[in-house]
């Protein structure tokens, strides 16, 4: 027997009952389709919303927090910065090129919807092991998709990260962050204000691509086989259309011709119409026959749920409508008046209810309270359970078992040059990139045609670490936040806010829900301690393939502010003769480290401790040092993290094509070199005493551990060397 329609659409029996309760009748097929996409996990956050409330989102510089298309902070001098991060994991697993490309397109629309010009993209990629052909296909497709779309749409990709790990086999993580800037007074929100205002659909004609993308694809896991039948649920992107849409929308917003504007992303027209109406507390009539189509004979439900890319919904007064249509025509953007904003009405005895009505050639085909679609999804407190054996595993310290390894052999396995990726992305456009990809963090000047050329800058860093979070989702997440905040400090930026992508497995598994809840608590704790509010983000659940959930992977992008960018800060390129100074204390603990976890498969122990007081002092001292780098004769600086001190130093050596000799490593070299305990940096300087003195003032231990020489060998002491 075939399953009932609501279940085929991804709605549960209880959810159907809730819809019947709201409407006082059975929903018709169009209504069911709309509820199914709007109440999907992807759109409604029904499993995570309860927990997301615990993330602190307020701060002195926060102008717009979560819930809008993007978070916005005040950078001073009348400049606002919009930032947003989103995942496009499931589409990228099915169709890597288009999945990644449309991930870029979608996040850019979130930025320019706010009135901001997108100036930067960062992409955080997590791929299955490269030895598997399917993973290589995904990896190549994703990188090509980001390159193909990002370059052509004209927004530089200035940073990101790449991780290969078996936990992402067949279920890659493609997390993209976008940043935009705008004059503060040009900020726009997604609201359908003003009864009688016109609803104008701008951009690509609507096709059948991406129908049910959020419900069929993004809110369910993958089985043993990758399911090609889901491929029509992946959208297809056109960067040229998006580029023109960006320019047209910025021109519309600059001329203040629109009352409100919203992009069409997941759940398409259902989402944009119901959200703009619900945000204003009003209703909306939409006439689907007026929606420009690229395919014949589309049903109303298809028009309402299509995720065709490069579309925007603008709310415009009747007087301004001709001017809006003229700007659209200039940029060769199709535009159609598809509806009108309506008065709230009395609905089932309740006053002031905004109703979304869908008409097809005059025939009413759907009639639902806009708010019930946009905000009415159930909030689930799904069962949570700590994984069995969690404590026992924490007690098995892997450190002893690591001590005998060959340092050089293990280190070489960790090397990967991300240049093969970022050289495929335009990272120079707009003349803002002071420090580009491949460094600890990105440093951008804050400039655009709209705000002019300012001295201000932003630091950006995207970070995640599934090993730490798998071992302990709460403390692992704290460590990730701490690392990300320190990274932006390394380019002289004061950590100011962050956005997150929470990538987890199937929330119907209690262990996964526990991981999610713990991780959120960890992020919240670190956010408060380090004063970095979470201004937006997204949650990607059902990351499971071949019957296995991915390891919990919260990924953050931290944004820091720089008042004045006067010089290129030191990165990883040191000079011959410089001393290498290690700042911070190394804990004798390899739990969760790359050496123990990946190289040796020792997946247990308790993560190194994080002292927020020390970490904050380090961040402050690093910012101060970097801003006065020339005064301290500092040539290079890097944090010690993934791969420990050994990988940190080897990356410096490879970047500089120049070796070094360590002599300050104690009698426990494997632990010293591979520990990933937090709150540590390496500084290369020709005046090490001044650097040590600077950190001593902040109460932070620092010591010389070696010296850069002219050789082509990285020498770690005790006979461990790596040829460059």
């Amino acid at each position, binding site marked *: 027997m075939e399953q009932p329609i609501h279940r085929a659409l991804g709605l549960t029996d209880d959810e159907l009952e809730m819809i019947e309760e709201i409407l006082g009748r059975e929903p018709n097929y169009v209504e069911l389709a709309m509820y199914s996409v709007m109440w999907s996990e992807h759109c409604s956050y029904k499993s995570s919303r309860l927990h997301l409330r615990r993330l602190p989102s307020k701060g002195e510089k926060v102008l717009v927090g979560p819930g809008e298309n993007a978070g916005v902070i005040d950078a001073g001098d009348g400049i606002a910065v919009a930032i947003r991060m989103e995942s496009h994991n499931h589409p990228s697993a099915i169709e890597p090129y288009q999945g990644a490309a449309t991930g870029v397109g979608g996040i850019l629309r979130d930025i320019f919807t706010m009135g901001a010009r997108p100036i930067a993209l960062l992409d955080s990629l997590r791929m299955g092991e490269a030895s598997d052909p399917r993973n290589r296909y995904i990896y190549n497709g994703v990188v090509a998709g980001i390159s193909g779309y990002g370059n052509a749409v004209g927004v530089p990709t200035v940073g990101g990260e790449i991780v290969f790990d078996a936990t992402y086999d067949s279920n890659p993580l493609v997390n993209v962050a976008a940043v935009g800037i705008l004059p503060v007074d040009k900020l726009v929100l997604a609201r359908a204000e003003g009864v009688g205002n016109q609803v104008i659909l701008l951009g690509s004609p609507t096709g059948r691509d991406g129908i049910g993308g959020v419900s069929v694809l993004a809110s369910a896991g993958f089985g043993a086989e990758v399911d090609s039948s889901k491929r029509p649920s992946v959208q297809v992107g056109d960067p040229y259309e998006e580029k*023109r849409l960006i320019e047209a929308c910025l021109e519309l917003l600059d001329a203040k011709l629109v009352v409100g504007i919203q992009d069409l992303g997941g759940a398409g027209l259902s989402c944009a119409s119901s959200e703009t109406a619900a945000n204003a507390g009003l209703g909306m009539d939409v006439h689907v026959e007026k929606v420009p189509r690229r395919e014949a004979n589309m049903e109303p439900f298809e028009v309402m749920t299509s995720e065709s890319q490069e579309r925007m919904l603008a709310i415009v007064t009747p007087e301004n409508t001709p001017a809006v249509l003229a700007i659209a025509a200039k940029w060769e953007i199709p535009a159609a008046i598809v509806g009108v904003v309506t008065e709230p009405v009395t609905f089932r005895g309740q006053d002031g209810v905004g109703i979304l009505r869908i008409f097809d050639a005059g025939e009413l085909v759907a009639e639902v309270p806009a708010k019930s679609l946009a905000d009415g999804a159930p909030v689930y407190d799904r069962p949570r359970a700590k994984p069995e054996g969690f404590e026992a595993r924490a007690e098995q310290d892997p450190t002893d078992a690591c001590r005998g390894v060959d340092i050089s052999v293990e280190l070489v396995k960790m090397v990967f040059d991300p240049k093969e990726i970022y050289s495929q992305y335009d990272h*120079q456009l707009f*003349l803002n990139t002071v420090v580009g990809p491949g460094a600890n963090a990105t440093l951008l000047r804050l400039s655009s045609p709209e705000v002019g050329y300012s001295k201000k800058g932003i630091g950006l860093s995207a970070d995640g670490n599934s090993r730490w979070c798998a071992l302990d989702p709460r403390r692992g997440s704290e460590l990730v936040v701490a690392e990300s905040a320190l990274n932006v400090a390394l380019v002289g930026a004061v950590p100011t806010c962050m956005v997150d992508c929470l990538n987890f497995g199937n929330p119907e598994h209690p262990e996964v829900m526990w991981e999610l809840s713990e991780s959120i608590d960890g992020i919240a704790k670190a956010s408060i301690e380090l004063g970095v509010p979470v201004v937006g983000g997204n949650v990607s659940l059902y990351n499971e393939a071949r019957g296995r959930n991915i390891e919990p992977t919260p990924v953050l992008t931290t944004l820091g502010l720089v008042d004045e960018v006067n010089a290129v800060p030191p990165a990883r390129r040191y000079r011959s003769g410089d001393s290498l100074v290690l700042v911070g204390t190394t804990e004798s603990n390899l739990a969760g480290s790359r050496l123990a976890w990946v190289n040796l498969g020792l997946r247990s122990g308790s993560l190194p401790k994080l002292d927020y007081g020390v970490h904050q002092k380090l961040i402050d001292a690093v910012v101060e040092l970097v801003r006065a780098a020339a005064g301290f004769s500092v040539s290079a600086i890097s944090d010690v993290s993934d791969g420990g001190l050994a990988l940190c130093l080897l990356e410096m050596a490879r970047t500089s094509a120049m070796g070094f000799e360590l002599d300050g490593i104690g009698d426990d070299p494997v632990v010293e070199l591979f520990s990933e305990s937090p709150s540590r940096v390496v500084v290369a300087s020709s005046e090490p005493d001044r650097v040590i003195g600077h950190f001593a003032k902040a109460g932070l231990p620092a010591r010389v551990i070696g010296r850069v020489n002219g050789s082509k060998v990285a020498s770690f002491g005790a006979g461990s060397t790596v040829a460059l």
Partner: protein
Amino acid sequence: MPPTVGVVVFPGTNCEHDVVHALGLLGMRAQIKWHGDSELSDCDAVVLPGGFAHGDYLRPGAIARFSKVMSSIVKMAEAGKPVLGICNGFQVLTEAKLLPGALQKNAGLRFICDVEKLEVASNRSVASALLQPGEIISLPINHFEGNYTCDHVTYDMLVANDQIVFKYVDNPNGSVGSIAAISNPRGNVVGMMPHPERAVEELVGGTDGRKVLSSFIEAVLNG
């Protein structure tokens, strides 16, 4: 009116603001010109900046060459005014037959964004007059279709007429003769794949692009 450089924008162009900024830093007035307007009579020179004009549909530059503005650009080129095509602008100039040859996909079939060393092959052009032949400069490149190609007859003609302006030191894209930039025989029309506007400030990209753009500006001023 002070001398003015027109910076042409097609839908899909994305380097126009960078070019205006760079020329401005060097003291030259620059104005953005929409491709659908045919008039360039208030401009003393023109730059076709980088990007993806008309989405690079069909081939880069293949649609742009039919834009209204192109007739004015052809007139300026024939009148000996400075015309500079950067990256996508170079592709447009070859499609419009203002420069010989064509730009095909990079030899590695990948997009490349990097900084490349260039050797000045000729200083007889509006983009290189202030440089010395043999001088090495570093400029950013950013393209998928930057692999310059032409037939033997054309190549011999380019060499004979001293039309090769810049050559890559380490050919990154497979270009014939490592060609990074060429001019017309008169030297007033130059197409180059590297981006001089991305190298005018110490803070971003270095300053080697200044010499290229200053050469161009001097040609404008000496009109």
